[in-house]
């Protein structure tokens, strides 16, 4: 053999090895070409290389045998047969890969399913617990509200009782002052030698009753008083009106002097109006020269304009 022929053969062998490595021997045989295409496709498929290495190896071996038969120039029936086997081995590798990928999926999904089931149970338990807590909190809140309402009712009742008690006490104290209940409230009448005719100066005999009145007012700081002055019919009505105001003012001064705040006391003068006795006798005129002290209710209000 000449040197050139050797070189050509070596080159051919090198080419065959190189081509064999990437499994793509150029082939004129249609079945063998198809088998190569299928195998190339399968071996570039990540799922196949991951899950069906051994099967892919067997397909590669089968393909090598077919290639060898082709390059050995064996008859078409043999080449076709071996190419068919390679083709089917490739298909087996792809099927096995599909199966194992699905099996792997089943495995991870099963684990995920267990995890999810546990999460759902935990979540449901949490929701149930929270619902129970909410219900409990609502019950407690309702109970607290009921208690608050009860306390308020009790307070209101106690306040009403205290108010009634203070009213009773006032009544008792004022009854000692001979107070009379009238349309516009309790009225204490200060008369009997209170003032001389034409005078607004309180006489000595009035002091004891004014002391009593001051004590009552101090005991009942919620009450206001309206001090109303009156005169007998001696003198002009204008001067009597002036005199009645001065008498009311005298009583107010006497009360403030005994520690009753001035702003709780209002004064008015009615002159010779509304006499309580006849002005034709000495005794009657003395009774008309008087001052009436009207008490307000608990809230400082007077029943009606007197």
């Amino acid at each position: 053999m000449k040197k050139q022929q050797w070189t050509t053969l070596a080159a051919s062998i090198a080419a065959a090895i190189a081509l064999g490595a990437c499994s793509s021997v150029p082939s004129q045989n249609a079945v063998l070409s198809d088998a190569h295409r299928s195998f190339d496709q399968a071996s570039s498929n990540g799922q196949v290389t991951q899950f069906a290495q051994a099967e892919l190896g067997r397909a590669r071996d089968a393909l090598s045998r077919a290639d060898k038969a082709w390059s050995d120039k064996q008859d078409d029936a043999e080449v076709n047969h071996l190419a068919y086997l390679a083709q089917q081995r490739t298909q087996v590798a792809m099927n096995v890969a599909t199966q194992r990928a699905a099996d792997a999926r089943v495995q991870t999904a099963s684990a995920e399913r267990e995890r999810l089931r546990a999460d759902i149970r935990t979540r449901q338990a949490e929701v149930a617990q929270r619902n129970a807590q909410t219900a409990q909190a609502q019950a407690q809140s309702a109970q607290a509200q009921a208690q608050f309402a009860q306390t308020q009712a009790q307070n209101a009742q106690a306040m009403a009782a205290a108010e009634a008690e203070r009213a009773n006490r006032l009544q008792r104290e004022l009854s000692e002052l001979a107070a009379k209940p009238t349309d516009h409230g309790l009225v204490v009448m200060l008369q009997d030698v209170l003032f001389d005719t034409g005078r607004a100066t309180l006489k000595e005999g009035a002091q004891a009753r004014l002391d009593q009145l001051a004590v009552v007012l101090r005991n009942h700081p919620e009450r206001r008083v309206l001090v109303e002055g009156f005169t007998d019919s001696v003198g002009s009505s204008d001067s009597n009106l002036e005199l009645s105001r001065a008498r009311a003012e005298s009583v107010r001064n006497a009360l403030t002097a005994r520690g009753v705040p001035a702003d709780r006391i209002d004064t008015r003068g009615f002159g010779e109006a509304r006499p309580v006795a006849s002005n034709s006798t000495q005794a009657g005129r003395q009774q008309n020269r008087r001052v009436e002290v009207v008490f307000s209710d608990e809230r400082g209000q007077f029943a009606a304009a007197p």
Partner: protein
Amino acid sequence: MARDLIPRGCAFALTLAGAAMLGACSTGKVPTAEQLGATRASVESAQIAGASDDATPEMAKAREKLAQADAAARAKDNVRARHLAEEAEVDALVARSKAAADKSQKAAAEIDASLATLRDEMTRATSKQ
């Protein structure tokens, strides 16, 4: 003739021995009864593994080729018998792997569906107050 030196019965025995040797070695050119039996077992086990003729055309092909291999062997068409037996075996493998892949894919689809149901349930459980 030199050929007459070997008796007829002796020639037949030599042929049988040669066939047995070739059969034992898997690259042998002649299928033995043993090889056909193994092919038959492969085809049947593929069938048992769930590869039906309906689901996989390869199953029918395998059975068909096995029958043809038997016939070829009876007709002493040894090359054809060997080809058909080998192809029947690989067809049965395809059928078997296809059936297994289908089965696993079905299982994966079912578990994915049940996962989707559970995720819905989780969403409901989370949004429930």
